């Protein structure tokens, strides 16, 4: 009897996607062993001129930006009082929590001595460093996100008293989360304010921290929409009536907000060009690439978002969300990799090894697996029947 049920439950798991996931996880485990037995030089293409590769450019910079849905959604619902987005909060908090946890996990691969990662916080604080600010805020925010996530776990486990206590902290945690997010999202950009001589002038700006913060907002909003569309496709059966009823409003509202913020972002980027008088660089190869990023991956999606909202075209908004997410990835790659060290000859530039890409995919795959486990077991996409009547 037992054998039969297990066989039945195994079959639907062998989808092509899951097989791929399994392969990535298996390769990732091998790469992990290689990294921690052979050192960075065995798995990465990093060198003395290019000390940061995609583990920083993608795993850290994109990871943090795309996990911004946590603070944007909870701020919209709890601080701005937009209760109609309530059902979007839990999935957003979960993604943010997983996102940040994976960022920290990924850093263990990148830094030379990961067991010393707590040093800057507990041992000797390098307070003049923006990286210290990033580290401290990410550490604190990960804690905040963990606490914000626990009610779902407590409902699952049946700890209703603990859950109640945590829920009382909601506003405090949300405000704390927004403060911390403002600080570290912007500080990730500010990391590069120290290198005017290495980052291409079109991307270097005194406004880098502002750019990173503002772009994290629409990154987060777009990610919530994009992720929602995936969840609808694959986890529809897990959603309750409230979630399904509210989801369209979330897509329309978030799409509208993203459209506005992106338009503002384009404006401040242009202001940045004017302040530094970098117009003439626009007519170079890097200029074309810069315009592709700014117009092709910010201005245009902003416009298409607006059309989607006006015509109430949910599909269009969802596709634009993916487009905007790619725009964020492009922007972070440009700053950390493509426009960085732009003056070095091609032979001294960096390109990631397949093993670096493998580790990044491995980390994303872990995120997907954990997300699926949690949404399958805990009340994320639906309200727990015991606590339904509460708000």
């Amino acid at each position, binding site marked *: 009897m037992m054998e039969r049920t297990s066989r039945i439950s195994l079959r639907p798991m062998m989808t092509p996607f899951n097989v791929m996931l399994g392969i990535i996880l298996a390769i990732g485990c091998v790469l992990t062993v290689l990294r*921690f*037995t*052979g*050192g*960075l*030089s065995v798995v*990465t293409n*990093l*060198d*003395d*001129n290019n*000390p*940061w590769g995609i583990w920083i450019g993608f795993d850290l910079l994109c990871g943090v930006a795309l996990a911004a849905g946590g603070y944007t959604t909870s*701020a919209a619902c*709890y*601080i*701005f*009082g937009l209760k109609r987005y309530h059902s979007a909060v839990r999935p957003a908090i979960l993604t943010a929590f997983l996102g940040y946890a994976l960022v920290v996990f990924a850093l263990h691969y*990148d*830094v*030379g*001595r*990961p067991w*010393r*990662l707590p*040093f800057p916080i507990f*041992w*000797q*604080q*390098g*307070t*003049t*460093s*923006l*990286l*210290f*600010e990033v580290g*401290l805020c990410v550490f*604190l925010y990960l*804690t905040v996100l963990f*606490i914000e996530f626990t009610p779902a776990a407590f409902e699952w486990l049946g700890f209703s008293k603990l859950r109640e206590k945590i829920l009382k902290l909601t506003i*405090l*945690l949300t*405000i*704390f989360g*927004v*403060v911390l997010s*403002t*600080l570290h999202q*912007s*500080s990730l950009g*500010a990391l590069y*304010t*120290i*290198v*005017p*001589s*290495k980052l291409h002038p079109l991307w270097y700006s005194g406004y*880098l*921290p502002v750019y990173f913060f503002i772009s994290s907002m629409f990154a987060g909003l777009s990610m919530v929409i994009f992720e929602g569309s995936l969840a609808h496709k694959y986890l529809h059966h897990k959603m309750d009536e409230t979630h399904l009823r509210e989801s369209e409003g979330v897509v329309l509202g978030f799409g509208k907000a993203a459209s506005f913020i992106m338009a503002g972002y384009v404006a401040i980027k242009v202001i940045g060009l004017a302040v530094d008088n970098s117009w003439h660089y626009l007519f170079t190869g890097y200029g074309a690439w810069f315009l592709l990023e700014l117009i092709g991956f910010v201005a245009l999606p902003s416009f298409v978002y607006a059309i989607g909202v006006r015509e109430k075209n949910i599909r269009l908004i969802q596709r634009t969300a993916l487009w905007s997410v790619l725009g964020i990835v492009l922007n972070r790659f440009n700053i950390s990799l493509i426009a960085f060290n732009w003056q070095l000859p091609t032979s001294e530039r960096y390109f990631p090894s397949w093993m670096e890409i493998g580790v990044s995919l491995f980390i994303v795959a872990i995120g997907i697996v954990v997300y699926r486990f949690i949404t399958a077991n805990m009340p994320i996409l639906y309200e727990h029947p015991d606590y339904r009547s509460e708000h």
Partner: protein
Amino acid sequence: MGISRRKFLGWFGGLSATAATAATSAIAGSNHHFKGHPDTMGVLHDINRCIGCRKCEEACNTVNELPKPEKPFDDLSVLDQKRRTHADVYTVVNQFQQGKEKVHVKKQCNHCMEPACASACFVKAFKKMPNGSVVYDESVCVGCRYCMIACPFNIPAYDYDSVLSPKVTKCTLCHPRVQKGLLPGCVEACPKEALIYGNRKELIKIARKRINKHPDQYIDHIYGEHEMGGTSWLYISGTPFSEIGMREDLGVKSAPELTSGPLSAVPIVVGLWPVLLTGVYAISKRKDKVAEEEKAEAVKAAENVAEEHLKNQIAKLKLEATKEKEAAIKKEVTKALEEAAKEAEKKAEAKAAEAAPEKKEDE
């Protein structure tokens, strides 16, 4: 929660205080300008005198007990390739063809007056010593390599091959030797006095004197006097620096000046954001409450109106009903009377005369 929040604020209080007292004040209203430690030492590299013999490289390798390279130091063919510092190479001499002449330039850590690496390190592994050396403490280094990103001269190198104890490496200006009263290894080994160790202020005077004495042989610029806020290593040359691998577009702002703006914004955000956000929260909550109250009131008013209306309706209906009833009774009574009259007329059927009043009672 309360504790971690307080701690957090405390940390940032500390942060702003450090930013204010460190070499460069966080923008604030100060016009204070840090000119470096008063007796900071340095090295003057007269590029015109360098012959590219690599003796300095050899000395550096020896005094720092670094592994010997594949090609020996007297093999000058390595000069054909442009090189940089690496994990086991703290200094290199590069060769540049200038017309028929060959120009040689030594490259190593410049020991900035306000070092980018020290400013960027989140665990304070780098320190600018009063004697000019920028030294590194391996025992706290996490290996994030932000120092390498930050260094405008691309000097710090990393031990990518090491699994358990990778470290950042760079020239220490022979800090241990200097403390013993010895000269830096490279300076001691230089056969042409292309390197002079001394008080930085004196070195600038010497450099200026040489430039003034031989304006035809030197460019009128002391490289390192102001670059990136000034460096302990100084260079004079007859060839434009940008043609011999030394960037002239670095600017004169020190690294801490570049980041002081964003850093100074941190305490302000910590101070203002909670106020702003709590305000927004209070406004939205108040709005909800007012809306709720107004709704309740409107509902009540509507209820009242409806009730009144209903009452009127009922009264009206009642009235109508009574009227109708009365009319019906009247009608029935008349009918009954008429029938009774008819009955009476039919005296012949007197036996059934009892039925009529019974019927009347029913109604």
